[in-house]
């Protein structure tokens, strides 16, 4: 009986995906998604953007959000932009969203597959997820994690060891890595000289 209203709610989703998750879906999910997208649209956290993901036909995927985080200028990544993908589970908000970096990041708490080690993204007692958190606040926390890596709870041992032993080398490596993979805004300097001639 839960299945019927779920199918109604998940317009545009391939129907095969629905069947597996029908049982555990909660009604709170739909209202949460709607409100959180509105929050991302009208009052996003500083340096964080999020919008509904679309499939290749251009239809919105309910519960999947593409996001972009602008790292702060004082972080090791010096204003680089990173893409992320947020998936809200069927039992959201009673379960944490799953967030993954799509842009490779050189960071002790983010592995090569973009998985993030952050307590907010896990259920208690191991983690600290609560329904009082939401996608905007989680993205803002990840932005903070970029600026302040936590070497005490590492996902990538080598980078954590480097951060502890030689912070300057870590910052250098992180910035070079970001230069290669992440996006930076176009500097207007080149255009200025063009305009001058």
């Amino acid at each position, binding site marked *: *009986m*839960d299945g*019927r*209203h*779920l199918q*109604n*709610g998940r317009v545009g989703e391939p129907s095969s995906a629905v069947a597996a998750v029908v049982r555990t879906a*909660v*009604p*709170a999910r*739909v*209202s*949460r998604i*709607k*409100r*959180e*997208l*509105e929050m*991302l*649209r*009208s*009052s*996003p956290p*500083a*340096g964080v*953007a*999020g*919008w*509904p993901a*679309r499939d290749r036909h*251009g239809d919105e995927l309910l519960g999947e959000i*593409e996001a*972009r985080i*602008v790292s702060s200028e004082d972080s090791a990544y010096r204003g680089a*932009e990173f893409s992320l993908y947020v998936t809200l589970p069927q*039992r959201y*908000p*009673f*379960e944490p969203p799953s967030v993954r970096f799509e842009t490779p990041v050189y960071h002790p708490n983010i592995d090569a597959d973009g998985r993030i080690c952050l307590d907010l993204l896990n*259920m*208690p*007692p191991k983690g600290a997820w*609560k*329904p*009082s958190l939401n996608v905007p606040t989680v993205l803002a926390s990840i932005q903070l994690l970029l600026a302040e890596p936590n070497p005490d709870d590492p996902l990538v041992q080598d980078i954590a060891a480097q951060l502890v032993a030689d912070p300057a080398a870590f910052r250098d490596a992180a910035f070079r890595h970001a230069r290669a993979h992440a996006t930076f*805004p*176009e*500097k*207007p300097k080149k*255009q*200025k000289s*063009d*305009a*001058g001639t």
Partner: protein
Amino acid sequence: MLSGPSSYLEHDCRSRTRGRLEYPSQLIPNRQSVPFCCRTVRHACLAMASVGTAAVAKHHRRRFCVLPLGGSGLESGVAVCLYHISGQESRVWLDVHEPAKRKAGQFGGIAGVRMEPALACLLHEWARPVTRLIRSVNSVDEFMHELVKLVDAAETQGVMADAHGAAGDQKSALLLRPTLHGGGREGIVRADFYERVLHDLHALGWQHVKHVHASFQSVSLIVRESKSSNSARSGRELVLDIAFDHEYPHGRRVCTIALPPTLLNVSAIHSTTSLSFKELHAHYVQVVDSARELLDVLDDIDAHCAVLEPRTGAYDAAFRRVALGNHSSLMVEFDPLNALNGAPICRFLGAGTFITPLQRKWSHGAASWCEMAPDSELPRARLERILGITFERPDAFSEADDNFSTDCSICYAYHIEDPGAEAAAPDARAGSARAQRQTSDGRSVPDTACEAHNCARMYHRACLIEWFRSLPNTRSTLGSLIGECPYCTTMLLVRMS
């Protein structure tokens, strides 16, 4: 005409019952009342009295001045600095009676006097006259004038009683007791510091003063943009916070004003250069004037676009993030030193399908930023022309009303289907006629509130139960679940029936 500080002191004592103070108009001609916070008004008013004292002192040698309470460690009453003939300072603290109700507006009398130990020793033999004085005087000013005479008499007679000697009569001892301060002078700020600060604020003009902190260690000044010839609009007002130590105008000083650091660094003055408030203020008027171009550009964006960050009217950041519609936004950062004509740095945030064409247009158009642009065209209009779009207007989000106080804080909705009820449309807006009918049976409204006063968030019982069941450490007793409020962690008890 200045008639001496007494009127202000009485004024201050009276106003304790009213909670609001008006400045004596002789002292601040163009401001009858200044928007200080209530406590600070008291300090400032007392302070003004000391400015008044300084003014009268031209005619006869000044022998005492009133101190701001913030520097005296006193919660109420009047703190006075008494100058000995030798030039030494002593502190006297006066407790003042609340005036009786029917005599409201009059001097209520002195309740008690505390003195620095040295002064208390000096006046030990004179306790009786001091007590008589306390009972007879009609103002704080009169008391201090008389006290100065007694101190002078005591000093010329050279009567130095031992501090631990015989006690005077009991009543005098009650009224005239040494201060609670440990006896040492360390930690006591010299009176001329306060006078210097007040004198300089007075010289600057009180219309430029926004706030004086009770500790007298920081002031907020208003810096007005000087009028430009070509703009009719009134000048912008920025707030300059100056924190200083007791060495003012020398010593360490920290100035803060909400402008981009690059702009401030151009004409930075060293923090140890000795400058008065007036000189500092004049310097920052120049700085604000140099920022005019940038502020014009930012104001134009704030007035015409839906700004997502920073908050509207923030001048300390030289960037704006404006909404473009379709969940996308543009972060545009200006060169603070060349905001009008330098090409800004643009970041486009949003779904690729929407953003990529704009990025392409920008890469092509940015080269012609300086060319072909009429001087009068502000960067906002130039960006719109290059990108071929109009930014969302400031009112774009006004219709999005937040019902966070009444909605359930877990599902962010007001109505929710009871998990047990027969399924209805998940979207509350779809089929509103049916939804209305089902409110009584199929849907529930937030009915459980957090007990904590500062939280008091509302929840659907079903949502709380669902959350508590997801947690491993939830306890259940007699058909109820006990768990923490997701926001404030207060313990909540929810019945499961």
